[in-house]
């Protein structure tokens, strides 16, 4: 490592810092700052090779690990998705071509799961980011104990999905849950949150919102603090009130940050899994008796690990991957549009 650091610090001098050399010994013989020998000499070639190859050598470990634990499973899943494979007998695979994918396209459960993923993603991401901007704006004022408020904002994020969902499941309990108890004061009959069509989606979204709002708020807060104060000063001089300053200074300056949080939240929403699974309780992988809140992640889990159709589950996994690619492409297009309009 030391030799490479020196190579970066003194790019010109000599080949003394090539990996494998003993820096001390060579340095003693040559001295520092001596120009390299002629361009054809083996030292200069070694040096040029070092400069070109070292960066790749340093990033290799990541790609090796990614290859072993990311790429290989990814490709293996693709291979599985073209076979009929049962979890109970992994050795017996029969080639079925694209049958698993055809099966998915004609399956009501798949389209239902895709739609649920989209609606739950929408009703959890939009309020979450709006709330986060509002909270970040408030935290940006001079407050007493500002660190305390910020830490409190981050605590839901630090809570495990399992613990949070367990508490929410009790709150949303049909019989004796706190939310139904509060609703009865305003004259609303107890709602069967788990089994009603929109209740389950609403409940699952509320868990996501609770967990991620503070995290996004802190990201917005950091971006807000990087906005130069003179922008606000000049806006104030022009007679802009607080709200106008927020709309015409803060929001435009936050644009790249907002885009980042939108991308991250979209990815999170596409992969939504733990919350609906645990919210459903026993046989939660069905996402309710009518699959009301079964997301794509849940449908994949149900097919692969509960039912044992690994081939079909792999096809779902690859479909999710393709959907994510499409979503990423759309995000990129919107980003480009926004940048042009700026």
């Amino acid at each position, binding site marked *: 490592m030391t030799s490479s650091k020196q190579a970066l610090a003194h790019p010109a001098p000599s080949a003394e810092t090539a990996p494998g050399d003993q820096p001390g010994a060579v340095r003693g013989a040559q001295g520092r700052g001596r120009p390299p020998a002629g361009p054809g000499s083996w030292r200069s070639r070694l040096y040029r090779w070092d400069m070109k190859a070292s960066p790749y050598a340093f990033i290799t470990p990541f790609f090796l690990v990614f290859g072993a634990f990311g790429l290989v499973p990814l490709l293996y899943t693709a291979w599985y998705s073209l076979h009929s494979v049962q979890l109970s007998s992994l050795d017996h695979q029969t080639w079925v071509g694209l049958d698993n994918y055809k099966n998915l396209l004609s399956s009501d459960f798949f389209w239902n799961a895709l739609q649920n993923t989209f609606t739950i993603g929408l009703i959890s991401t939009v309020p979450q980011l709006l709330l986060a901007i509002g909270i970040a704006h408030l935290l940006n004022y001079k407050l007493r104990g500002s660190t305390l408020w910020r830490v409190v904002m981050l605590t839901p994020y630090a809570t495990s999905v399992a613990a949070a969902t367990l508490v929410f499941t009790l709150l949303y*309990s049909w*019989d004796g849950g706190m939310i139904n108890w509060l609703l009865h004061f305003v004259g609303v009959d107890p709602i069967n949150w788990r089994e009603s069509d929109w209740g389950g989606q609403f409940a699952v979204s509320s868990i996501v919102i609770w967990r991620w709002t503070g995290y996004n708020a802190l990201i917005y807060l950091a971006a807000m603090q990087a906005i130069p104060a003179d922008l606000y000063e000049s806006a104030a001089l022009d007679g802009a009130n607080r709200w106008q300053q927020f709309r015409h200074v803060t929001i435009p300056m936050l644009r790249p940050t907002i885009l980042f949080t939108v991308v991250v939240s979209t990815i999170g929403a596409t992969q939504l899994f733990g919350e609906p699974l645990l919210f459903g*309780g*026993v046989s939660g992988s069905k996402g309710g*008796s*009518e699959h009301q809140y079964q997301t794509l992640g849940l449908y994949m889990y149900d097919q692969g690990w509960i*039912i*044992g159709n690994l081939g*079909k589950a792999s096809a779902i996994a690859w479909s999710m991957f393709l959907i994510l690619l499409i979503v990423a492409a759309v995000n990129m297009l919107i980003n480009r549009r926004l940048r042009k309009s700026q």
Partner: protein
Amino acid sequence: MKKAWADAMAVATSNMSAKLKQFDKPWDQGYANGTFATVACPAWMIGYIEQKSGASGKGKWDVAAAPTAANWGGSFIGVPTAGKHQKEAIALAKWLTAPEQQAKVFAKQASFPSTPSAYASLKPQADTTAYFSGAPITQIYADSAKTIPVQYFGIKDQPIGTAITDVGILQVEQKGKSPAQGWDAAKNEVKDVLGQ
């Protein structure tokens, strides 16, 4: 199968059901707070009832034979052919299922034995008997066990069961679907399970 479905529908469409899923949190709370009166359950579940109902349920439970004896899961002992110590494993399985051991387990936590020759030597703990209002549980279970049909369990037994109970029956019970709709939903679910 038809009769079982019809019976389940009769309960699901009446107001007799507490509308709880088995082994769910609210179900456990129901035990603790005594919010339902009866549970149809396998023999091994009386230990579960005692644990979940707690001290306040003592003497308030009783045991009666189900109208028809049936198999509702439980545990099975198997020896994989790939195992390195098959002989020892078989010996252990034999020892575990021998009448003496099963009688001991029954006395401790009232898990009903799988070996019919153990029935005669069963003695439940005094505590268990007191908890279930002095019900003659050994007698009831031994009589029921003799009428249980021998069943074959397929690999997809569990997910198919879930499709019937947690999709079909639950839709009728909690979502106000008609029994015919519930049956169709269960059928579609089973097709999905079987990859059709």
